[in-house]
């Protein structure tokens, strides 16, 4: 069986690679990603599963799944014009394991679309750039629609995580698996609630504090109950990215995180669990 060895919640702000390149690894962003990178290295994973919301690059409105998984030998990214600080990577993957996740998921009632011969945008590649140096560990991307209404319910995303966990724990190979959920809690990008002269804004800082209180307490049930669709949209037009964290939390058994760092100016946080 596969073992879940670690879980992380991480941001994917597109200019963070160039920012850390300029400001150095001792900058706040460099330090916070560094904690996750060191923790992941110590967990010695064989493969990473990342829950992510695509930003209309891998998918578009003419073909827009609520849930999807990438099944191939590997993928490339970012496919949305890097903002400096990172190359376009070729990332290895683990298609047989991804197929098992898809097959068992569909048989359990989760309608998971399949992606082959695909690429990913910054929302997958920025966290990987920081925590998977040289892309040495294979990565399986799992996509959850988190921007455009209607959003899948938080409860459903948590149950999806539980289903994937059952598949992993019954998988015949002895693998060490790390989980990442990526996204913001309160963030508006290019919508009416941005800051003057900026491309984004944090419309609902109190929601960031509230989400982090649930995370710090290991109160996943409380977070799921609070994370209604209206609440997430009210926190910004990418507020539904919280769903990627909620799917990830299905692997943490309500444990308190080993680290939890808020970055209020961006409406997000960094958290990690060694399991």
């Amino acid at each position, binding site marked *: 069986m596969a073992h879940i060895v670690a879980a992380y919640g991480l941001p994917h702000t597109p200019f963070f690679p160039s920012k850390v390149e300029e400001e150095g690894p001792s900058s706040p962003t460099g330090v916070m990603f560094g904690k996750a990178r060191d923790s992941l290295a110590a967990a010695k994973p064989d493969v990473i599963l990342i829950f992510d919301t695509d930003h209309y690059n891998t998918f578009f409105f003419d073909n827009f799944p609520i849930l999807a998984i990438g099944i191939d030998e590997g993928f490339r990214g970012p496919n949305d014009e890097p903002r400096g600080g990172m190359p376009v990577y070729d990332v290895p993957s683990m298609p047989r394991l991804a197929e098992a996740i898809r097959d068992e998921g569909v048989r359990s009632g989760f309608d998971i679309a399949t992606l082959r011969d695909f690429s990913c945008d910054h929302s997958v590649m920025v966290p990987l750039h920081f925590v998977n140096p040289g892309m040495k560990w294979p990565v399986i991307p799992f996509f959850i629609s988190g921007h455009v209404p209607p959003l899948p319910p938080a409860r459903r995303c948590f149950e999806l995580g539980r289903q994937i966990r059952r598949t992993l724990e019954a998988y015949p190979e002895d693998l060490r698996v790390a989980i990442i959920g990526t996204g913001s809690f309160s963030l508006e990008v290019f919508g*009416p609630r941005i800051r003057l002269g900026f491309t984004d804004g944090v419309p609902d800082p109190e929601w960031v504090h509230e989400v982090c209180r649930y995370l710090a307490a290991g109160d996943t049930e409380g977070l799921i109950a609070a994370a209604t669709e209206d609440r997430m949209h009210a926190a910004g037009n990418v507020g539904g990215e919280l769903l990627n964290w909620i799917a990830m939390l299905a692997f943490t058994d309500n444990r308190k995180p080993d680290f939890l760092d808020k970055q209020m100016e961006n409406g997000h946080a960094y958290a990690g669990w060694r399991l």
Partner: protein
Amino acid sequence: MSVLELDRLCRETLRDHAFRKAMQTDPAAAIARYRLTEDEKRALLAGDVVTLHRMGVNDFLMGYLARFSICGLNIQTYSERIISAGPGGGH
């Protein structure tokens, strides 16, 4: 309403560098390949992101117009205009 076409057009400014250049230099000619209504063309060419937002164009994709300085937009003018749509001003 051809909101999908407008969304597509915005995304192509990221993906297709020749189209981006055309949108920066002669947008009225560049948009001819898209099936847009006269109202949509007018709003787009004027950089009227409030009207586009109210038509239902995706904000994130519309932001590429500002990022690549298209139709008179930049981060400053885009933010001034979209903020005026107000939190309840769109979809």
